[in-house]
């Protein structure tokens, strides 16, 4: 199920915007909490291309920009970290035979990554829209998690209370605010920093 632009704007307004820049820790500051893990699921596929534009011409779906940083608990960027992402199309269907809506990104020198895609759809086995992540960096424990959207109708405008409507959403922190960028046409954006431990 894709959100209409109006639904997205309304949800974004009601939940505010909280796109947090990756904090740099001062000496003695508490370490950043590790990003919560979440299920890998059966649709992971090795060998995805290193594409930053996953949009398939002609495919329906609200364009979505996903960006973030890969950090260690001190806030140090993990340059060269591998960020594998995959998600369903707007109808909730995963591409099994090919690599639609799949990518293998490399974090930049400042730990950043970004990709263009569409908002994933719902499907019968899952309540919430989501993007899968598998993030790896030398010397760090591989992070397997999922990114959820605060605007998801499944959360009925109140992800604080409703995130567990999808039993696989085990941690509220994985539900991220969504903003609408109207320049050049409607487009959603979400930020998702990941913190890897050892």
């Amino acid at each position, binding site marked *: 199920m894709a959100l209409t632009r109006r639904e997205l704007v309304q949800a974004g307004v009601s939940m505010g915007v909280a796109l947090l820049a990756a904090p740099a820790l001062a000496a003695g500051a508490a370490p950043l909490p590790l990003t919560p893990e979440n299920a*890998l699921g059966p649709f992971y596929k090795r060998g995805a291309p290193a594409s930053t534009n996953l949009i398939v011409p002609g495919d329906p779906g609200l364009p979505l920009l996903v960006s973030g940083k890969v950090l260690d608990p001190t806030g140090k960027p993990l340059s060269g970290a591998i960020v594998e992402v995959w998600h369903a199309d707007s109808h909730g269907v995963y591409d099994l*035979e090919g690599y639609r809506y799949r990518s293998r990104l490399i974090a930049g020198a400042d730990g950043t990554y970004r990709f263009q895609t569409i908002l994933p759809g719902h499907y019968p086995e899952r309540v919430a829209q989501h993007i899968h992540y598998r993030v790896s960096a030398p010397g760090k424990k591989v992070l397997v998690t999922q990114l959820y959207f605060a605007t998801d109708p499944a959360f009925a405008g109140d992800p604080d209370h409703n995130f567990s409507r999808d039993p696989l959403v085990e941690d509220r922190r994985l539900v991220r605010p969504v903003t609408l960028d109207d320049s050049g046409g409607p487009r959603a954006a979400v930020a998702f920093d990941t913190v890897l431990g050892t």
Partner: protein
Amino acid sequence: MSDAGTGAALRIEAPAPIRGIALVDSAARISALLGDMRIARWSCTDGRLLGEVTYRGTPPTAGAIAPGGDRLALATGDNKVRLLDASTLTPVAEMRPAASPRKQLSFSPDGTLLAGFAGGRRLELTIWKVATGAPLLSFTDPALEAAGIAFHPGGRIAAVSLLTGDVLLLDLASGRPTRTLSEAQMTSKALAFSPDGSALVVAAYDGALLVWETAHWGGRRFEGIPGANALAVSPDGARVVLSRSSYNPPDTPAEARLLELRTGRVLSRMPLGIVSTTAVAFLDPGRARVASARGTSLVLREIAG
């Protein structure tokens, strides 16, 4: 190549929605777990109901019917794994020791071993000897997640398919991994050794059918069925039958295929319609039974080639 398999479909109407099916006793019978916790058994020859019994114990977290059809393994939320008589549900044995709740149970093809995977994002596997309930192997790796298991007929090796697509080979005597097969790009719930143990066959979700010769673990890749969830190798090791149910999306037509294992050549394919679950088993080297279910309807067909 045939597109229709052989013979007419035998249709069975269950008294309640079907949650899971298993072809047992060399595919002479089919057992089904129904939504009201009844376990029913039918003859695959004429569709006659052979018996049914209702489970009334602690809610199960996983279950498996033994290949012979005479035993039912049930895991429950109180961390128990019990072996029951499949006809009466009388307890026969308890696997021990108690551990974390099991979310997936699988018998070895000869019914002598039972594998139990715990839930959660870690590989926690126990394999028990069915005859005694004693553990044969316990293996845990917090960095791995499992999808399925196959037992080597010699009882020496288990192959565990991981969600990353890797297949981990475990030596059952030492309890240690001996090799990781990394040729698959997606995971698999459908994997089996050939009856003579010379090959391991894995149907990956992306549609690849991977065959490894166990003598040297050299691999070959053929075209299978994307999303395959059931697989069996013929008694002579010459053919493989695989099937998929309808999911991703849920209106995907299910199908079964019979292939020549040496070349990957498709010998026969059979559309199954829209179904929620499938099961396959060979009747003889050239003929396999395909079961599919949706709601309360169960359909049995044969595929040959």
